[in-house]
């Protein structure tokens, strides 16, 4: 049996310090929290509070200055670029504020991209299928600059789901969209997420969007706090804090 660990994401005392011209700058205070498999978590906070930084660390796009991250039972510590890339390819999907579609590939080709990188053979069929799911089956041959922002983000969502990732990271997915398109994208995102039981970590400064997640974490000046709210949170983890 494929035993899925209870926690899809485990973090312990992760910090991020960067070198700037004015000396070292601590962007993240020590952060510890866990995310269960299938759970959806929103990280909210003001612009510049460190949300994207946290996301980049969780996704293995960047390296922590200190602390440990375990994704689906695999510790990121000690992994090189290549191993982290492989891990991302296997387990992680992404959605970005600025869509990040490859401009020189068509919508269909963009959706195929992760599947091809993973070496899947029926990439094209799968991509077409999922494009249809996001309602863009007829736009497959169009290039990103021929699509509206909302459409581009739907292509990006299709791309994120094609490999059936265990974890999905979304950084302000509706940040560049108007309200109507934003809602459409939101709905699509949650719909697909529920359908595939993916663990979702969603960064946003939109409280309404955050509400749709099972848990909300608040980021403020590099510090993360759990917001307790009316929602039924199954098991609220005790947040370990360490004075920085």
């Amino acid at each position: 049996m494929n035993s899925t660990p209870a926690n899809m994401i485990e973090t312990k005392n992760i910090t991020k310090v960067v070198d700037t011209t004015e000396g070292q700058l601590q962007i993240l205070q020590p952060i510890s929290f866990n995310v269960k498999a299938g759970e959806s978590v929103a990280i909210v906070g003001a612009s510049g509070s460190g949300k994207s930084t946290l996301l980049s660390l969780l996704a293995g796009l960047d390296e922590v200055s200190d602390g440990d991250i375990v994704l689906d039972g695999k510790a990121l510590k000690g992994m090189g670029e290549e191993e982290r890339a492989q891990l991302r390819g296997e387990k992680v999907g992404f959605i970005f504020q600025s869509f990040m579609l490859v401009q020189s590939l068509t919508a269909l080709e963009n959706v195929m991209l992760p599947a091809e990188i993973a070496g899947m053979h029926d990439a094209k069929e799968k991509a077409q299928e999922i494009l249809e799911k996001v309602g863009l089956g007829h736009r497959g041959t169009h290039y990103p600059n021929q699509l509206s922002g909302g459409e581009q983000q739907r292509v990006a969502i299709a791309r994120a789901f094609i490999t059936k990732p265990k974890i999905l990271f979304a950084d302000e997915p509706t940040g560049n969209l108007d309200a109507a398109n934003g809602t459409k994208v939101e709905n699509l995102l949650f719909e697909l997420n529920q359908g595939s039981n993916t663990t979702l970590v969603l960064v946003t400064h939109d409280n309404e969007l955050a509400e749709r997640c099972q848990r909300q974490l608040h980021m403020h000046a590099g510090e993360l706090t759990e917001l307790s709210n009316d929602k039924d949170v199954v098991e609220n983890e005790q947040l370990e804090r360490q004075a920085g």
Partner: protein
Amino acid sequence: MWYKLAWRLFRHEARRGELTIILLAITLSVAAVLSLSLFSERLQSALTERSADFIAADRVLDSRKPVDPTWLENAEENGLNTAHQVYARSMAFANEQMSLVSLRAATPEFPLKGDIKTTDQPFGVGVVTEDTPKSGEAWVESRLFQSLGLELNSTIDVGDMTFTVTRVLSEVPDSGFNVFGGDPKVLISIDDLDATNITGPGSRVTYSYFFTGESNQLDDYYDWLEPNLDRELHRWESVEDDDSAIGRSVARAEQFFLLASLLAIVLAAVSIAVAAQRYSQRHYDPVAIMKTLGASKGTIQKVYLLQIIFIATLGILLGTAAGMLIQQVIVSIVAERMDITLDGWHWRPLIIAVFTGVICALMFSLYPMLKLFSVPPLRVLRRQMGAGLSSRLIQFVAAGGAILLLMWAYSNNIVISLILFISGIVLVASLMLVTYGLIWVGRKLGQGKMGAWQLAWARIQRRSMDNSVQLISFAITIMLLLIVLVMRNDMVQQWRDQLPEGTPNYFMANITETQLPELQTHFSDRDVQVDNYFPVIRARFVAINDEKIRTDVTKEEEENVEREGRDGLGREANLTWSTTLGEGNTVIEGTWLSDEEKTGEFYGVSVESGIAENLNIGLGDLLTFNIGSEIVNVEVTSVREVNWQSMRPNFFFVLHPKSLEGFSPTYITSFHLDKDRKTEITGLMQPFASVTLFDVDARLDQLRSIIDQVSVAVEFILVLVLVAGALVLIAQVQASMDERQQELAILRTLGAKGTMIRASVVFEFIIIGVVAGAMAAVANELALFLLQSQVFEMQAAIHWEFWLLAPAIGAGVVGILGAISCWRLLSLNTSHLLRQMV
């Protein structure tokens, strides 16, 4: 899967025209290298062929005695063609007059290379003939008609045999070129030789055997023959390096081809580097995305390497096709007579060209690609994150090293390569300085109201590094174009100067002192301009420092080009006197003859450097000449270098006038007669039967036509280099437009007027163009000085006109290119621009 991805990206980029510059650059460098090296190989083989014309075969065996007939049988068994000719000096008689003639008795196969030309009118225009004289016939040179009063079908006695004169002999291929002339030639059939009875004991006869065939057959034959040869009797001649005026012009032209193609390669490489850099930058996002989505570094490398392979392959194929086509065009323009065959040797230029394409495609995209591979995945979140690799030094070292290596590998000439390379470095360094100077000045000027000028300056300031890179590539491009342009101008000019309009096409010799005044008035009455008269005294050169030297005269020595001296001079020497140094003469050792009386025991003599070297004569040596029965001793006081390319009488020995006092000279001179006045020549010469006339029109025409042909090729190459240069400029402007795109979009959004933005961009390019042009003019001067003095052996001069022209051209061209691409950019609407930025 990665190859599909590579193909998809490639296809899309190609469709959007993003790869056009790289493709054109690779195509151009391959085409340039291929066409130029093919062409110069063809030129080379055509010249070898032409040199072969001058000895009438590929190889000649000269012998003082008839050779063993088995030698010839063996040659024919080896697959060689053979012909035979016997030379002898003899007296010819007609109309109770006599003349010393150079008799040639030839087999019908003669000549194997080159042509015999005959005519039916003395001094008429010769026409190529395939025949040789039949038994009983003699073909006789025009001069002999003059001196013996011959007519066609009259008879002439040579030795014991009487011949009928059937044709005027105007040219034989192996006649050499000698202003002082040998004796007039008489060509007969070899079957009649015995009947003349002139080859008996004591006579001076040379037996020449001619061979043609494949070079390996010829070599094999020589290997077999060599042990049988006797140095005293035999001499083996092969086609040697052509040191004639034509040979030198062509050698210089080839060097120019080499230089030009080097520059074309450098330019192509620069445009590849610029375009690859741009391509790489445009792919930062895709690479970051692919990495984020789990692509390994290896996959990404393969994806992009494959794209380079696609484009290189395409470029090389196109370039090869274009190169073949171009050289076919050049060849057909240059020489209709050249046979075009796809022999084995065509592979060498092809290999070089393909190699160049591969190196250009790989080496100059290497750094941008390495940068691209190092783009971190984090860029998907932090948009401003660029490549991890960012040392400009690596780029300069890598690209510079590759350029130098390529130059060296291709030219095999480290001097040319280093000259170009170092002047490039100097240019780069000084441009850096100027750029920072400009920025400083700009800061002062840029204060105040925001007009188009201020905006332009501000932009230049802000992107000082990018701008200096731009400036450098503009300046280098302009410099390289200038080099090729000036070299071409100077070279073609020099060739023209060498044979200006009115170059003498006739030489006269044997004018006696008494004939001189009469001849002068006769010619000026007929409106023919005659050059200076040079006094000539025939002498035998008998001793150096009282050591006797060989002076026997044999056929080949007499007939060969004046320059070739051996142990002795081998013939009578023509002495002249003067105290003015002749045109095209330069003293390289000692001092030129002065009007003053002798200082030592003997008067001075100036010796030509080639013969001084051959005969091992140095300053202070005592030379002894025998003039009639008198002895003249002179001391070497100078050694002269003589420009044999000038079609003027030149002398090995120029003596002090006093040393030849009392001897009566004859005079030689030259004059020019227009082609349409050629018929007047008989009337012109008629009163002076004893004066010998040489018609060198054929030679001049040959020289001119080769120079014209090579000039056409040079023009063509100029165009090629200009195209390469244009490519760089376009690539560079295009790349810098990308950088401006965002700024323009923002300015536009903020409501700046289109005209203002456009003007500021155009001003910016104009400023850059002026500076680049000015720098290029300076660097051009340096490079040209080194090239002309070190490589091309030309007089280097300053080209002031380009100091003004280069900045003007720079401003014009760069400004216009900038305006065009800016106009394109601004014609897109703002939201489109903004969207493209994302």
